């Protein structure tokens, strides 16, 4: 395994963490938007309290992935920034609105009647719905291998270069898949965070529903991949590791649903996280050795060895600070003991 492959793996690991943690925070916003029933306000309160202490740290995984990408694979970053300018800008607007609105909601002073202004909460929830769609769409455009070299030259048709690669049924289906996956993760985590039986049941139902919808979204994306992303689809179905990965994903998915059914929340959390991770790594392995298909490979776009070596040192040192700090954060706020 080369240094460049290790670096690519580290980037994907950061993206994986972002999907499991930051993704679930987006999912929380989605459930805020769809909060219903007699316990509506308590659902929203639970979501906000679960996110509050951790969402900023969860968000940094994305920044870490981006920084590692432009350091280790500058040509891939440059092409992504050029050809996906529009969806990435939209995702950024969503990220800005989601984060700002959440703190305005939670930290802006309450009104005269001590109620937190609902307008920020709505903005937070809507941005939480739109951002995963757009992020998923960019992932779909990458997986489809439509970001070829031809587009990065000046001139040419604007639509063909800057819009067509991501405005495809497949990419949009991946966007929907990301949204459903994040909502699924959030609902599963929230069953564990809930402090009473009623909320546990609310989020159990949502998790089960989202889990089933996730099968549908995956099937739709796979079907559309036939036309738009045949390479990834072939690798997913017939690659050398396709069978074990498919089996592992299926096992995790069924375990998650069964655990939800039997109210084993902790097991459900592990299984759901594993399921989403397997799917992500399926994508990564599906396009390996390309970092940006069709033509940019890990080896061809890698930074000089001096940079990769230095990055590895930074990663190791950084992890020595990061891992204990994150463990502390999650032990303090997600440690299981429930304060009334």
């Amino acid at each position: 395994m080369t240094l460049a492959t290790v670096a690519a793996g580290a980037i994907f690991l950061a993206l994986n963490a972002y999907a499991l943690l930051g993704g679930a925070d987006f999912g929380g916003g989605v459930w805020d938007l769809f909060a219903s029933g007699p316990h509506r306000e308590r659902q929203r309160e639970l979501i906000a309290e679960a996110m509050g202490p951790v969402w900023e740290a969860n968000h940094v995984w994305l920044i870490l992935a981006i920084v590692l990408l432009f350091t280790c694979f500058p040509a891939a970053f440059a092409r992504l920034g050029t050809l996906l300018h529009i969806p990435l800008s939209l995702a950024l607007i969503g990220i800005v609105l989601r984060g700002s609105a959440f703190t305005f909601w939670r930290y802006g002073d309450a009104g005269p009647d001590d109620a937190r202004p609902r307008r920020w909460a709505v903005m937070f929830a809507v941005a939480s719905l739109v951002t995963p769609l757009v992020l998923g769409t960019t992932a779909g455009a990458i997986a489809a291998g439509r970001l070829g070299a031809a587009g990065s030259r000046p001139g040419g048709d604007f639509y063909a270069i800057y819009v067509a690669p991501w405005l495809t049924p497949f990419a949009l289906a991946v966007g929907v898949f990301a949204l459903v996956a994040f909502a699924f993760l959030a609902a599963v985590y929230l069953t564990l965070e809930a402090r009473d039986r009623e909320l546990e049941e609310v989020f159990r139902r949502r998790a089960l529903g989202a889990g089933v919808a996730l099968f549908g979204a995956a099937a739709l994306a796979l079907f559309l991949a036939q036309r738009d992303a045949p390479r990834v689809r072939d690798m997913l179905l017939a690659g050398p590791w396709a069978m074990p990965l498919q089996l592992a994903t299926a096992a995790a998915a069924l375990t998650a649903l069964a655990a939800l059914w039997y109210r084993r929340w902790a097991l459900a959390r592990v299984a759901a996280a594993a399921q989403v991770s397997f799917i992500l790594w399926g994508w990564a392995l599906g396009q390996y050795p390309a970092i940006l298909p069709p033509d940019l490979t890990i080896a061809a776009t890698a930074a000089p060895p001096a940079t990769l070596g230095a990055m590895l040192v930074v990663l190791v040192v950084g992890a020595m600070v990061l891992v204990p700090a994150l463990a502390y954060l999650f032990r303090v706020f997600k440690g299981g003991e429930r304060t009334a």
Partner: protein
Amino acid sequence: MSDLLSARAQMGMSLAFHIVFAVIGIAMPLLMVAAERRWQLYRHPVDLELAKRWAKGTAILFAVGAVSGTVLSFELGLLWPRFMALAGPIIGMPFSLEGFAFFTEAIFLGVYLYGWDRVSPRAHLWAGVAVAVSGAASGVFVVIANAWMNAPTGFELVGGQAIHVRPFAAMANPAALAQTLHMTLAAYAATGFGVAGIHALLLLRDPANAFHRRALEVALLVAAPAALLQPISGDIAGRQIARHQPIKLAAAEAVFVTQRGAPLTIGGWPDVATRRTRFGVDIPYGLSLLAFHDPHAEVVGLDAAPPDEWPNVPAVHLAFQVMVALGTYLAFVAVWAAWQAWRRADLARQRWLLRAIALATPMGFVAVETGWLVTELGRQPWIIYGVMKTADAVTPMPGLIVPFLTFTLLYCVLGVIVCWLLYRQIVRSPAGPGGQLHSPARGAP
């Protein structure tokens, strides 16, 4: 508006917006930790109230800083893909270190904001310290990356490709020390005076208010030393650019002709067409003395570079003059406050001093913005000084005015909301000599 200008405007606007929140995010944690430490030592409820209110303001400002920082990390690729393709492997190191520092900051800010009742008082204070330290560290790392653009080292350029890349040498570039020192002190001075100024204004109305008195004290303890040290770091920075970025210095000081014993021009409007600075006041030998600590030293003028490699001289000169003037004012107020404190005078009753501090509220931030304009505009037309022109770095995508206007609108709206929320928080400050709204028992750690 050309695409290049739109891209520059979008990047400049994004940075101008972010830098305010970044600066506050560096210094504010120090203030809240200082207040919390006082509460733990002396158990005066005002200190706890102060720590909690400052933490609340920090939460909002930090979040906006974090998301606007995310925008910047993407904009490097959205607007300047060719710059990043070359520079990424060379300056990725400080950016990655910044990523980890920012991670630490976000983690412990979560512990600090939500952990009042969850962790021990000791752990809580240390979480605050971790936020303050990692906040300063992430600022330093980002500024190191910017310093490299001004003084690029750690690589060789062969046929447009960077070879022999040495990431550590790139971090140790000649501008790094001067810039990080200057920027970090600026963060403490601007934020400290920003906070002190608001409380000074409120003390003018309500001089007995214990809450505002304590806030003024803590804020000045951070602001005054930074403002006093800033001229020294400014001298280091000035001498650094005199040697390594002479055209930037020439623009900042409006020096058109290379000369020995160069005078220092105060004020004035540089007329590029006639190559003369009009309406300025010259101090003989002043610039040679400042830039090289030698009255007869030669100062490189703009004539050393072809005019198409000049930055916008009037803009750089004006921004530089404003920065220096405001920094001087802050240092003057710091001396005044220190003198009064040394006399053991009651600062909250010194009405002229309070007025001077209140006037300083926005000045640190304006100085930060103008100083940053000097750094960035003064480097133009280069994006990497002497290596790559900004025009060669911009994305080929047309229609860049659309994202520029979109993000400008977004940030204008956000800026208004943040100001409004902070204003509401400030007007709800505790009133009267007791200076507190809540009983000390509530929320005690």
